[in-house]
């Protein structure tokens, strides 16, 4: 059980000279010596909390019951990490209270404390201890961990010689065998190959079935949708939505991009090679229905000559890519000396998708897709309304299924019999 009550966390943003990461005693002393009057005034009358204070979390309250898997979603900077850090006791809240009904294992990073020089075996013990297991517990689970990670052959090899896949597998295997009653998991499944990700998701589902409480943070909305029963949406440090996970996910999609019909991007500007930037994206401003085709368009800026292909994605309710397609044939941008802007328009035909929230993304890639020159995802989204055209007078429920294309269907009577 996890009860969060009016939680708040304030960070003091320190005034620091440009390009200096740390406070040096030298500078503190120097500033106190050069301006003793100001320092004295601060001691006598501390400055009221001004723009230097930043609330990463404010008035957040929610509850997760035992055995539930709760997903936390939100954009970058919404306060997800801060919340996890408070729940896992890495940092203290400024106000409010959290009640945890059991021991907490937090997995904010895969392989926390792994040492490259140590062998797989040694790292299992070290990492286990860091995550709060006792030595006896680790010894008891050791074989299981090794089997789960599939690294038995390399147990006595230093992990610096592991492939990144092996490394992640080992790290997750240790974490997956924790026995704490509450498990807090950050975006750790973003690494590792697809098959192992699936295995991890399965393991997490098992964990929840075992009666333990899980809090899960991810940008992978489909993972959230499959694993979690309950969802919480954080926005700018406050709880924007809570409840059934599918509702919260659609609230998230709704809030994050619905207002925008066109988005402009700031170029990052690479120093070498041709520059490819997706400059903007736009969708029609009017209400869209599944019965009419509509266009999603992107502007791409090229500098220098490069052969590219375009990938286009449609996501439904933030989860799986419903549509993933490309431009069929690579195209060459302008000559090396020139810069040019290209508009690319994708047409979504009528009755391709069923009503619901959809978001769109595009990548500009090299023809063999080994290089992603530019990528935007989930930046445009919209509700596709039902045009009610196909329904007829009887059927009024929601369409099941993600796509609803008009298929050729023929009906003929095979056998007619009469009862007389």
């Amino acid at each position, binding site marked *: 059980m996890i009860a969060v009550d009016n939680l708040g966390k304030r*960070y003091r943003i320190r005034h620091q000279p440009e390009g200096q990461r*740390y*406070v*040096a*005693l*030298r500078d*503190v002393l120097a500033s106190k010596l050069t301006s003793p009057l100001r320092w004295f005034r601060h001691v006598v009358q501390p400055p009221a909390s001004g723009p230097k204070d930043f609330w990463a979390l404010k008035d957040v309250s929610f509850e997760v019951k035992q055995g539930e898997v709760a997903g936390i979603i939100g954009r970058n900077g919404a306060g997800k990490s801060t919340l996890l*850090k*408070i*729940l*896992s*006791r*890495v*940092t*203290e*809240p*400024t*106000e*409010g*209270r*959290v*009640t*945890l*009904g*059991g*021991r*907490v294992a*937090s997995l*904010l*990073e895969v392989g*926390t*404390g792994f*040492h490259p*020089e*140590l062998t797989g075996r*040694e790292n299992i*013990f*070290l990492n286990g*201890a*860091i*995550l*709060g297991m*006792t*030595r006896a517990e680790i010894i008891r689970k050791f074989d299981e961990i090794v089997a789960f990670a599939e690294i038995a052959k390399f147990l006595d090899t230093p992990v610096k010689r592991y492939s990144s896949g092996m490394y992640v597998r080992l790290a997750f295997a240790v974490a997956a065998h924790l026995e704490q009653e509450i498990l807090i998991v950050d975006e750790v499944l973003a690494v590792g190959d697809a098959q192992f990700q699936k295995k991890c998701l399965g393991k997490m589902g098992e964990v929840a079935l075992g009666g333990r409480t899980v809090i899960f943070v991810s940008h992978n909305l489909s993972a959230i949708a499959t694993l979690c029963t309950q969802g919480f949406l954080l926005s700018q440090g406050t709880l924007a939505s809570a409840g059934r996970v599918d509702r919260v996910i659609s609230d998230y999609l709704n809030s994050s991009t619905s207002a925008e019909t066109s988005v402009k991007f700031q170029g990052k500007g690479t120093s070498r090679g041709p520059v490819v930037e997706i400059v903007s994206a736009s969708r029609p401003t009017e209400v869209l229905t599944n019965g009419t085709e509509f266009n999603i368009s992107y502007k791409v800026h090229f500098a220098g000559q490069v052969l590219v292909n375009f990938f286009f994605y449609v996501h439904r309710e933030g989860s799986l890519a419903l549509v993933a397609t490309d431009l069929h044939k690579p195209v060459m941008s302008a000559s090396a000396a020139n810069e040019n802007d290209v508009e690319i328009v994708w047409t979504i035909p009528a009755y391709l998708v069923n009503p619901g929230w959809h978001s769109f993304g595009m990548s500009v890639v090299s023809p063999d897709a080994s290089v992603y020159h530019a990528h935007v995802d989930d930046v445009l989204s919209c509700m596709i309304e039902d045009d009610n055209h196909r329904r007829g007078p009887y059927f009024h429920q929601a369409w099941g299924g993600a796509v609803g294309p008009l298929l050729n269907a023929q009906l003929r009577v095979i056998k007619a019999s009469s009862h007389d």
Partner: protein
Amino acid sequence: MKLVIGPGLAAKGYWRDLWRYRELMYFLAWRDIVVRYKQTVIGVAWALLRPALTMLVFVGFRRLMGIQPGRAPEPILVFAAVLPWQFFSSALSESSGSLIGNANLISKVYFPRLLVPSAAVATAFVDFLITLGLLASLMLWYKIAPGWHLLVLPVFVLLAFGLSLGAGLFLAALNVEYRDFRHIVPFIVQFGLFISPIAFTTDKVPERWRTLYALNPMVGIIDGFRWSILRGQPPLTPSALGLSLVVTGSALALGVWYFRRMERGFADVI
């Protein structure tokens, strides 16, 4: 089991948590030792080489200065001082940088932070124990049999441990807040080597300066080591010893207090 998190509540149950996480301290110390000896070619010999060379240099220094040798063989007289000094200096250097060195742990996982510098001191303590073996072989070589005084040695070892831990905690916490402290620690260590009675014995210090000199807590500890190893020679001055005890105790108390005070903010600053 129920756990409540709130502002200022981390302090509750801190010492109980420290006990619960004791195995982690063992693992951190073990990691540092294993990694160190894996990375060096000569491995464990490294722990012996440093104090042995330091000892040789100081014995040579005594000869050059024409310091009269006493009854005890000079290598043992000097080594009895090098031993605690080496422990203190390496414990101090390692623990003061330990929080920064384990920043990734501190920002990702909860455990009582006190474990990190303590593990660093423990690592230095293992080296100390290895070096103790070298002292034993030196004593065998010179046919010096220890007396009952040796039974008191653990007390001085404990003092050295407390002093290292206290100073280490204080500097470790300061290091998180003010990064330029890492330049100060080597200076403290270097300076301490010269103001501690390693090349000479405390009785070479003029009588009227002795009390002031004993404010350096290593003076009492080093004198104690010599006294225990060399069968009560040179004799101990109770006042100097008492002073050393007080300074060590205060250093430990101050270190723990300051560390505990700063600890809450580590994850936000580091």
